[in-house]
């Protein structure tokens, strides 16, 4: 790993996104729906060194709008990856000892095959002809990447929000491949309110006159108005009431007195506009539709009889965490997950952390949160690599 001269201490330094074609026409990705998809190319990054036993790999699962660039600096960049405070030398996911993999999700728009990719049958972008997929499919693509990298078992699967759903899914379906799972401000099932927010976001996109049934690329336009409104609304759900009050209050933007009109007057409006605009530069509207929909349908414990049978085999050690000001996926979501895991004898550690920053807390440097993850990761490392006994015969 080369270290950029400008990278601050504790950084993984200069990094770059790599690409791998994991599925081809001859060996397509078979989705849970039975549909076939090929080719599938995946953008990913790695940090740290894989040890000789290949036992120190940690998979970082990104959330709805993340990408493969979790830590370090791309060439010429001044801002690091999206989880740089969490991943690096001496950080909770310590790259001095761990080998970290982060990949852009299937259906995404940051280098992995998604609805903006060309459909090999027509040469045009897939648009809404891209098949619907599940969290299980996201995980199966990650598993293919691991095989490509020559890794059979993860020390830990780690993620917040949609990322946590992937870590959960992987552990339930393939417990032999995951020693431990860190699931932060996530859920095993979206509530009606969660789905409602996603539904309105999708409506904003699909009702944009430039949407053209998802074929906006062929029309040379983009549903920017819809996508930015979707992002603005989602952003409100990522912050807390208290956090917004602290950050903006009723302060005006660059003014002493209100203009009494419909233009941006309040700081909070200006902030949301900025968030909406900035999002357009990096995100594709169809990807937003697919990746919100994949969350709506996620319900691994929907059929509790079938799930219970699967959970009987799970010996993955779970760390579940929530934040007290998060109302997107509040603590009740995490506690439901804890109750189900504990009832099926899956070893689970849980803690709610105090933080005023709402759902976004998982991306921020909240000391108690980082301390807990660091302790947990150290212990898991000792068990999976150092031969320290786990908690007894595995399952609790």
């Amino acid at each position, binding site marked *: 790993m080369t270290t950029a001269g400008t990278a601050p201490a504790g950084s993984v330094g200069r990094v770059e996104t790599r690409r791998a074609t994991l599925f081809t026409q001859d060996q397509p990705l078979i989705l849970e729906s039975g549909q076939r998809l090929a080719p599938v190319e995946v953008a990913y990054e790695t940090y740290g060194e894989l040890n000789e036993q290949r036992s120190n790999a940690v998979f970082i699962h990104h959330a709805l709008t993340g990408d493969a660039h979790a830590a370090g600096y791309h060439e010429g960049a001044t801002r690091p990856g999206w989880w740089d405070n969490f991943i690096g030398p001496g950080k909770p996911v310590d790259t001095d000892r761990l080998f970290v993999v982060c990949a852009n999700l299937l259906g995404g728009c940051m280098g992995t095959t998604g609805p903006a990719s060309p459909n090999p049958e027509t040469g045009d972008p897939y648009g809404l002809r891209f098949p619907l997929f599940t969290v299980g499919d996201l995980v199966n693509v990650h598993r293919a990447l691991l095989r490509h990298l020559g890794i059979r078992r993860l020390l830990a699967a780690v993620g917040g929000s949609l990322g946590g759903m992937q870590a959960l899914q992987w552990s339930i379906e393939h417990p032999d491949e995951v020693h431990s799972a860190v699931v932060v401000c996530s859920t095993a099932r979206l509530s009606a309110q969660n789905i409602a927010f996603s539904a309105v976001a999708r409506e904003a996109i699909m009702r944009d006159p430039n949407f053209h049934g998802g074929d906006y690329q062929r029309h040379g336009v983009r549903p920017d108005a819809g996508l930015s409104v979707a992002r603005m609304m989602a952003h409100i759900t990522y912050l807390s009431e208290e956090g917004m009050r602290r950050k903006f209050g009723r302060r005006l933007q660059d003014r002493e007195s209100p203009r009494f009109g419909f233009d941006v007057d309040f700081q909070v409006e200006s902030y949301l506009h900025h968030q909406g605009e900035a999002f357009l530069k990096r995100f594709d509207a169809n990807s937003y539709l697919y990746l919100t929909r994949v969350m709506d349908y996620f319900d691994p414990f929907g059929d509790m009889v079938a799930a219970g049978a699967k959970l009987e085999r799970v010996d993955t*050690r*779970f*760390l579940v965490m929530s934040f007290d000001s998060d109302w997107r996926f509040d603590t009740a979501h995490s*506690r439901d997950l*804890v*109750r189900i895991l*504990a*009832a099926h*004898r899956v*070893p*689970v*550690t*849980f*803690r*709610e952390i105090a933080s005023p920053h709402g759902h976004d807390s998982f991306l921020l440097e909240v000391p*108690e949160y980082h*301390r*807990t993850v660091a*302790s*947990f990761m*150290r*212990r898991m490392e*000792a*068990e999976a690599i150092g031969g*320290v*006994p*786990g*908690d*007894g*015969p595995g*399952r*609790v």
Partner: protein
Amino acid sequence: MRPDLGIVADMVPRGSRVLDLGCGDGALLEELIRRRGCSGQGVEVSPDAFHACVSRGIPVVSADIDQGLPDFSDGSFDVVVLSQTLQTTYRPALVLREMMRVAEVGIVSFPNFGHIGLRLNLMLRGRMPSSRLLPHRWYETPNIHHCTIVDFEELVRAEDLVAVERVLLNSSGGPAGPWVQRRPNLLAAGAAYLLRR
């Protein structure tokens, strides 16, 4: 490990699935899991003790047991342990009820406030009693609901529970001598019970 934890550990059947309420740094669970074939889970409210459990690899849920045990389903454990913690809860009866909802067997240990040393402390010196098992001053003690052996057994009956086994403790937390059996409420410094629904 503290002697009273050793006594509690001896009461847990080998290979049980154990929930330890107020598990502290996880020492009891570590003993049960690593040496007695048990599996288990702790509940702890103190952040430092929580971290100690995480570092030991003991699964632990950070929660206040006075709020009940909403994270645990009916009958999802074989044994629930409440060791030297009953007297620190706001609602001891509720905690006992929740224990016996989550498992068929409960193990409860507590300091006996009827012990002669404590009685004399109050009677002769007119001071709030303290002892090796109860080292805190009155204004900083976590112990807010003291009881005697007689009091506890009354609660057990009132809750329709059966005390299957009782071990009396001396002031070091070890097993009390045979002479203590004659007047447990006066002579035992503490007690550990195995309860069934």
